[in-house]
């Protein structure tokens, strides 16, 4: 094997002239000191002995000289900056993208893929020049720049060590865009993607400079729970749990699926899941008071499973508290029918003129306007308000408006066909500044449907009387009402299941006293997070862990949230050999691996240091041996002195 060695600082070799100087000094030193002794009789005898093995003796006598020369040689060699040519990724800047998605928790590479990715990243950094500036991006459900254009190796290593699993999927697009933004500012940069390849890739993204993909992982042995649903059986008030398992390996997998209701085992199935296919199981008769149903794939014999993260799933049964809706109307059959169709809704229709107590629930004023003094505490839906209130002003009547969606993508009017509505007349309302206009008259821009939040509540205004249009006869009507009620009466709508990395929005429950106590969220690992409401919402995004999150609101109500992986992309852990990554730099000289070198002076300098230590030990060995002997004889002396 012939490793070509480069010296980057050949001028340093002039220092080799010091070697003869040392040798000369050694010879000079050998002019011995004269010493008078009583007799050389004993020494003579010894020297005669020694001359019997003279060559070795001579060498041993010069051991110090040899060591000193070697030490100096290595030192000078280090000064000359030796380097060996490496498959050189010797860019001055580098962006490392580390996949932190759930599949990186697979244990096919010891101890897991993330650790292997960390090692690969450290190796890449090792190959870079010492002054290269490095950015690290952790790419999970959300991508994050961990360290940006830093040359501080210790900080970089620390940053790499601090990267943890994000738990969810991996959207490489954002990470690549960040990388591109960095790479575009640099002339000599490279981008390294360290991943198992189970990522969402943007259609086309090209990055300037060199782009490399370092694949991690070597197994595809995995089974997963892909789905876990709970159904309330209407008749006997029990629950059914439906689980779907999937096998991503190439051989049939025999696994045991266990259902637990509040940690009590209720059902077990032995499943033979065909390769690359799914198998379902249903657990019936779970008592209805159960809050958490857990499905767990237990290992059964020989089936290998390298990703334990997706072998467990949780489902939460939370009996929905019905939303209270109070309808104040002279009688509106369309509206009442549409409302009665909605699930989990308690509808009060007080007789006109009767006092009512809506509590915190939604109040619908159909063709009426309340006294300003008596505005209820909860959310409000006005339909064709005849007069102004403190919230809005009715300016007149609009004849035959043509409805047009101002915000056609608004979720409130999703699936609602609006262009075929015929309206006889509508109240003309000046849009208040708290409101968003969803529907408006195509000509006068006068709003037909307004939504918004004011005085800490949600308010929607439908400007036209339902009886003065054909809208109630259309398919879109119940859909719109359902959307509106869902938006206006969100109490029972907080999410119960999400995927890792998802952002969860908790709506502030409407209370008369509007106290602003924060949410306390307990993560599966027991860590507690407190979140304050802002503008009626609390946003929680620290959902990287799978498992059950407990959300305690200020008024003592506890709700649960299950985070499950449920991601075939992540469960399919078979690593990809390559990623379709494109470099925008034209193919040619830059695409071929640039030759560079890797300096090895640290190694030679360490060797020099080791030689120096050995030299010192050899020089001091008489003293050291004496010390050792003293220590050995010490206890005996102590014993004698007693």
């Amino acid at each position, binding site marked *: 094997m012939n490793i070509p060695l480069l010296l980057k600082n050949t001028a340093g070799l002039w220092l080799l002239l010091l070697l003869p100087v040392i040798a000369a000094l050694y010879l000079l*030193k*050998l002019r*011995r*000191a*004269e*010493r*008078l*002794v*009583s*007799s*050389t*009789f*004993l*020494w*003579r*005898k*010894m*020297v005669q*002995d*020694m001359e019997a093995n003279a060559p070795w003796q001579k060498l*041993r*006598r010069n051991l110090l000289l040899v060591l000193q020369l070697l030490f100096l040689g290595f030192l000078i060699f280090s000064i000359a900056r030796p380097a060996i040519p490496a498959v050189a990724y010797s860019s001055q800047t580098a962006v490392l993208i580390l996949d932190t998605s759930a599949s990186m928790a697979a244990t096919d590479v010891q101890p897991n893929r993330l650790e292997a990715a960390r090692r690969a990243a450290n190796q890449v950094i090792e190959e870079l020049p010492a002054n290269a500036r490095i950015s690290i991006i952790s790419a999970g459900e959300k991508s994050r720049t961990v360290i940006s254009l830093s040359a501080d190796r210790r900080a970089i290593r620390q940053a790499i060590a601090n990267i943890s699993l994000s738990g969810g999927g991996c959207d490489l697009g954002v990470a690549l865009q960040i990388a591109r933004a960095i790479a575009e500012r640099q002339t000599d940069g490279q981008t390294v993607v360290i991943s198992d390849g189970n990522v969402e890739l943007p259609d086309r993204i090209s990055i300037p400079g060199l782009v490399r993909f370092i694949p991690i992982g070597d197994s595809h042995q995995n089974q997963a729970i892909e789905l876990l649903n709970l159904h309330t059986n209407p008749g006997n008030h029990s629950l059914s749990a439906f689980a779907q398992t999937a096998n991503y390996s190439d051989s049939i997998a025999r696994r045991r699926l266990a259902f637990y209701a509040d940690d009590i085992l209720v059902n077990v199935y032995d499943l033979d899941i065909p390769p690359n296919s799914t198998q379902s199981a249903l657990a019936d008769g779970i008592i209805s008071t159960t809050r958490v149903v857990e499905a767990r794939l237990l290992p059964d014999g020989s089936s290998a499973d390298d990703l334990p993260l997706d072998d467990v799933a949780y489902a939460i049964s939370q009996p929905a508290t019905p939303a209270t809706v109070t309808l104040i109307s002279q009688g509106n059959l369309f509206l009442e029918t549409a409302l009665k169709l909605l699930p989990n809704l308690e509808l009060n229709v007080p007789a006109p003129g009767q006092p009512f107590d809506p509590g915190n629930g939604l109040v619908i004023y159909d063709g009426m306007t309340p006294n300003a003094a008596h505005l209820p505490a909860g959310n409000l839906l006005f339909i064709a308000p005849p007069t102004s209130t403190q919230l809005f002003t009715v300016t007149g009547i609009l004849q035959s408006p043509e409805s047009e969606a101002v915000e056609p993508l608004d979720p409130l009017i999703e699936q609602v066909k609006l262009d075929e509505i015929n309206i006889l007349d509508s109240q003309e309302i000046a849009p208040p500044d708290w409101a968003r206009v969803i529907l408006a008259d195509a000509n006068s821009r006068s709003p037909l449907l307004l939504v918004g939040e004011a005085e800490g509540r949600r308010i929607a205004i439908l400007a036209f009387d339902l009886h003065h249009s054909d809208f109630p006869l259309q398919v879109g009507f119940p859909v719109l009402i359902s959307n509106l009620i869902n938006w206006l009466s969100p109490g029972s709508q907080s999410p119960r299941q999400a995927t890792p990395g998802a952002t969860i929005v908790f709506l502030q429950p409407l209370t008369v006293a509007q106290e602003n106590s924060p949410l306390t969220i307990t993560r599966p690992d027991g860590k507690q997070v407190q979140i304050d409401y802002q503008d009626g919402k609390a946003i929680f995004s620290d959902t990287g862990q799978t498992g059950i999150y407990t959300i305690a609101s200020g008024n003592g109500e506890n709700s649960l949230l299950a985070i499950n992986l449920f991601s075939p992309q992540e469960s399919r852990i078979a690593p990809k050999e390559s990623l379709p990554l494109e470099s925008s730099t034209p193919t040619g000289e830059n695409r071929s691996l640039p030759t560079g070198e890797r300096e090895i002076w640290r190694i030679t300098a360490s060797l020099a240091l080791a030689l120096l230590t050995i030299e010192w030990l050899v020089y001091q*060995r*008489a003293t050291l*041996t004496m010390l050792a002997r003293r220590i050995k004889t010490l206890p005996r002396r102590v014993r004698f002195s007693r």
Partner: protein
Amino acid sequence: MPSERLFDEAFLRRLERLALIFRQSANSKMQGERRSNQRGQSVEFSDFRPYALGDDFRRIDWNAYARLERLFIKLFVAEEDATLHILIDNSRSMDWGKPNKLSYALQTAGALGYIALVGLDRVTAITGANGLDYANSFLPAIRGKQNAIKLFSFLLSITASPGRIEPHGWLSAYAARPANPGVVILISDLLSDGWESALSLLRSRGHDITLIHLLSPDEAQPDMTGDFRLIDSESQAEIEVTADFETLERYQANLHAWQLGWRQFCRARGMTYQPVQTSTPLEEMLFARLPKQGLLK
């Protein structure tokens, strides 16, 4: 050189409690106080033996003849005097070390000589002067405690020999002197060749020889590291030595082998070998080591 007085009074009184042991007959003509293992004329009965032709009639035990009708000769313990020969090597190498080997040798000689004088034995001493100055290098036999002052002044006059001492020549000359076999104590550092043959010669004269082998601490454990040119204090011969750890280890091993060789040499010839470092207190040597060797009691 040693101080004007070798010992103080208290030490001398302690020495008087010691006595020399003679392991063989002195064959002395003079009757002394030393109990001989030979039969002789004294008052102390030792044994009977049958009469043989030519025995002295006066020693026949007539009482035994009356009882047994056989003639027996009564034997008595002979009491004799013995001679202690103290041989002091005063070559240049002996005038060395801390404590000084020569002064240590003189103190040892003085102590042993005094013990012998107290025991009414004859003491003679010789040192290896050039041979030219014979009178000053030899103490003729003296006897009796009152002559101790002669011994001490002789010892105090001894200095290191200016020239070389050839052990063989010196000892063979001494062996050739007409003298009764006695106890010979040789105090030397043995740091030259030729001692073996000289001692063998001396032994052949029938002496009971004790060899006190002196070494100074710096000879036993040389305290030097580095490259040296060692110069012999006697011969001015030079030798180059790199005193590193291995060398010193080897020196030690060599020294032990040398001393072991001497011990075996002495045992083979019925001599007593006592190696002593001059760092050993004189008391320890006189009151512990030499009694253990059977020289003193």
